């Protein structure tokens, strides 16, 4: 059986990451799957510390592995502490523990991908068949460490079903760019031509200046590059500038490091539109490391700000679900409206099937 690491990220805070994660935890418990759980932020508290509104609780069953910070385990006899993990967070060191009896958990884990890889390794080594990673805010970049991703979107991102549908389409498009494996270093742009290749010290962020620099070097290198590898995030404006700089040069394959790095570079709709421009100019797009996007979850709830306080508000659930579902060709679920069985089947598989992986 393949061991899996599934991330649950969101497009914004309060888009339903915790609700989705809680639903998966329930399904996994029912299926008696050995689960490990951690977070790239902080979750599980009673009240949201920004809006002051109640938050969904994270319940874990006996045997679940939990990687969270030491203070969240202190004085909790419902956890058996297994080992410390050499990853520090703003709340203390990450510690691995096993749940002794069903209980609530506060999750706080590694903020970055490197720390997350370390924690996921420890969860696997200690017997976790399915490691779940709770996201935080709209932070996506650390999720490069997982092998499957669910993205939660919803009214908390913007209470506008039409916008959410368009953005969901853009996210899906970026996350499903074709994979072109190869070598690539984080600190080097590689412009490869038919007879020679050129590497540049890379700023790790493609801004306007570097977009011109890369395009200029590509032209100076003799033109006709076959591919350009860009190892970091790129803003929409920089991608447009790069497209302008490459005009007159034959079709190029632009290889980005990871879909989530593209999403980190700017608003998904704007980045997607910029990529449209490059494609329409004849260029091809790929990513060095692909992403297994298992689906989207949608959440009609949102905290509506009224002066200095927030109140709970909600869009029409069915309308939101239908809008997003119509815009993308990957599974979309509202786990509160529809339950989580279908979502679980995609993750773990039905009887006789393997799920993703």
């Amino acid at each position, binding site marked *: 059986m393949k061991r899996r690491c599934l991330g649950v990220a969101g497009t914004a805070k309060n888009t339903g990451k915790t609700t989705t994660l809680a639903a998966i935890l329930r399904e996994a418990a029912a299926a008696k799957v050995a689960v490990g759980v951690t977070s790239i932020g902080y979750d599980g508290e009673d009240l949201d510390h920004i809006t002051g509104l109640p938050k969904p609780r994270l319940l874990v069953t006996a045997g679940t592995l939990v990687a969270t910070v030491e203070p969240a385990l202190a004085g909790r006899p419902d956890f058996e502490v297994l080992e410390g993990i050499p990853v520090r967070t703003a709340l203390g060191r990450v510690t691995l523990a096993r749940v002794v009896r069903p209980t609530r958990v506060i999750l706080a884990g590694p903020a970055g991908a490197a720390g997350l890889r370390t924690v996921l390794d420890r969860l696997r080594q200690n017997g976790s068949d399915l490691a779940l990673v709770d996201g935080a805010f709209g*932070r996506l*970049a650390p999720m490069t460490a997982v092998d499957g991703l669910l993205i939660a979107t919803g009214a908390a991102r913007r209470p506008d079903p039409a916008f959410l549908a368009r953005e969901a389409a853009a996210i899906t498009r970026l996350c499903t760019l074709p994979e072109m494996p190869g070598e690539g270093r984080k600190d080097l742009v590689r412009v490869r031509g038919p007879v020679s290749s050129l590497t540049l010290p890379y700023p790790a962020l493609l801004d306007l200046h570097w977009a011109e620099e890369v395009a200029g070097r590509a032209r100076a290198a003799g033109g006709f590059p076959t591919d350009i590898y860009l190892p970091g995030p790129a803003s929409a404006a920089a991608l447009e500038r790069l497209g302008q700089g490459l005009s007159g040069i034959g079709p190029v394959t632009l290889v980005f490091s990871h879909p989530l790095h593209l999403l980190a570079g700017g608003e998904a709709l704007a980045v997607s539109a910029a990529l449209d421009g490059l494609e329409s100019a004849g260029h091809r797009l790929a990513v060095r490391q692909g992403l297994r996007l298992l689906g989207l979850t949608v959440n009609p709830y949102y905290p509506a700000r009224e002066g200095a306080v927030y109140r709970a508000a909600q869009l029409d659930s069915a309308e939101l679900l239908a809008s997003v579902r119509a815009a993308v060709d990957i599974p979309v679920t509202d786990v509160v409206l529809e339950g989580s069985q279908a979502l679980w089947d995609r993750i773990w598989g039905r009887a006789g099937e393997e799920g993703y992986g």
Partner: protein
Amino acid sequence: MARRKVLLAPMDPVHDVGLKLVQRALDAAGHSTLRLPPDLSAEEIVSRAIEYQPDTVLVGRTLGYNVPEVLARLVDLMEAAGMRSRVRLGVGGMAIRPELAAELGYDRGFGPGTSPEEALAFVEGREPQPPAAAQTLEKPDLTAGYGYLAKDREVATSLEAIATAAVAWGKARTSPGVERARLRRRLLAAEAGAGAGDGRVPESAEALRRAYVRECDPPIRAFYEGTGPVGKTRPLSPDEIAALAAAADPGGFERRRVRHLQTRPRVFVQYGTGCPVMDSAHNRVAEAWGADGLVHFDPSWAARTEGLIEGHHSHEEDGTLLTLANLRSIGRARLSGTLWQVRAHRGLNTPEIVVLAAAAGADLTKVNPVYGSLGAGTDPERLVVDGVECLSLAAAAGLPLDVVTNEELCGVPAGKAFAGMLIIAAMAVHLGGRPILQPLFCLSPDVMVTGRMDDNFVDYNMAKVMALRQLYDAPIWPGAPIGFLTHTEDRVQSATSTALHAAIAVSLEVDAITIASADEAYSGGSIAAASRVDTLLATAEAFRFLGSAKVAPTPRAREWADELVAQIKDTLRRILERPSLVDALYAGVLGSPADGVYPGRAGRGTVRLR
């Protein structure tokens, strides 16, 4: 320590003071810093970070709408740019908490009150050094350096005559309160397995307790005989007693400083929720916010009843029962440097309270039979007899005591109240004690009638201290609490008034003050712990505001101080015309029905000659 490169990024459009302070500390420590202009975008900060190649990026931002998203986006960009694993990220701002920093993806969050040292420690990858001064928990002697000499010849002569006669008068008499105190001392010695200090074999605790109970009122007798609890009380549960034990001084407790540059005044707060467990929690809050001392308040009904019960007990209304078990637990729960006062200034059990206070390890007590009999309902004769015993016991136990003048609140003019205070102080000194003068900083009925505070609250309060210093060399502890009768139901107003009165006190360099909580005057019952913090913070702010500067009174303060001196002398002369201090109390020389006070009746007729 390796030199670190630190990029400081103020993401706020305006405010970057915090980061400037941090930069100064980092530069002084030899690190290399670059502070960016304010209000750059996340992309611009990451671009500059790529150029600068820092070890640490510190971001400053006041939270506002969508700001958490912006802060989270910066972290995501750093991650996507491949910098996150080699650059440590810290975020600071007024609304930043560790949980929010963790959720946003930062390695450390710096909230309000963060010191530059904390940021420096983060950059250097070590734990911050605790500020040495804030951790110093020395317990000061408020009476050190005072000679207890009357500075005015007439006042010295009058006090000597009145105090000597009053002490002799009291020592020739006894009361149930005196007898119980003596029995309690023997009982404590017997229970400790010791003799009464005279080499004899230990007495029978049971026999002593039976003798004690015979001197008590029926409700207290019923308690000891097991025929009924005392009204509105209940024994603490084992869990509550365990909680009290667990509240013992944790050591190394980090507390704020309430004073700025000043060494005086020490700041006392009052407690007495009725529940010793709650008291301990409230006291820890007060200590955390810088309180130097705690004053125990007991129920007023207990003062009108002969005898005290034993054991851990809770009281369902305000005032925490005076039992040795309660006191010991509350006393042990305080920090080692915290002063603790147990009051014995009114009621029928004052000598025994001093015995319990000393046995429980209190640092101070409070005695004034003049106030206790005129303003608090105890018979003057009884309270003077008990008061002499209290003063003797306090002196023997080495307990300094304050002499409170709260009869001013009933309408007695300050001059009369001060005469009574100086007499009790002189009696204490006569018996070998160390008294502390406690004038009120208050808007008293007499002041309202005479209009002395129509213009300001500064002159008359300062005049009181000036007058006392002119007459007597003793420590001064305005109270209790300062700003009495100036507080309203508005917590901001109450805290501000307390702070302004504290500003007067610090300008006068008095030895201590007692402050109320911001809801004390109008709470209608329980006091909220947050209200304690209100006035401690406000007082600290007043001390910070003034530093070594001072509040200056108008020339009226000098005039009123002279007027007070004259009133005190006149009152002392009139007392000398009476057969005794007790007679003067009944006759209204130290406060009359016309002023608003009446001799108390509790315990009347219980005094007998030895």
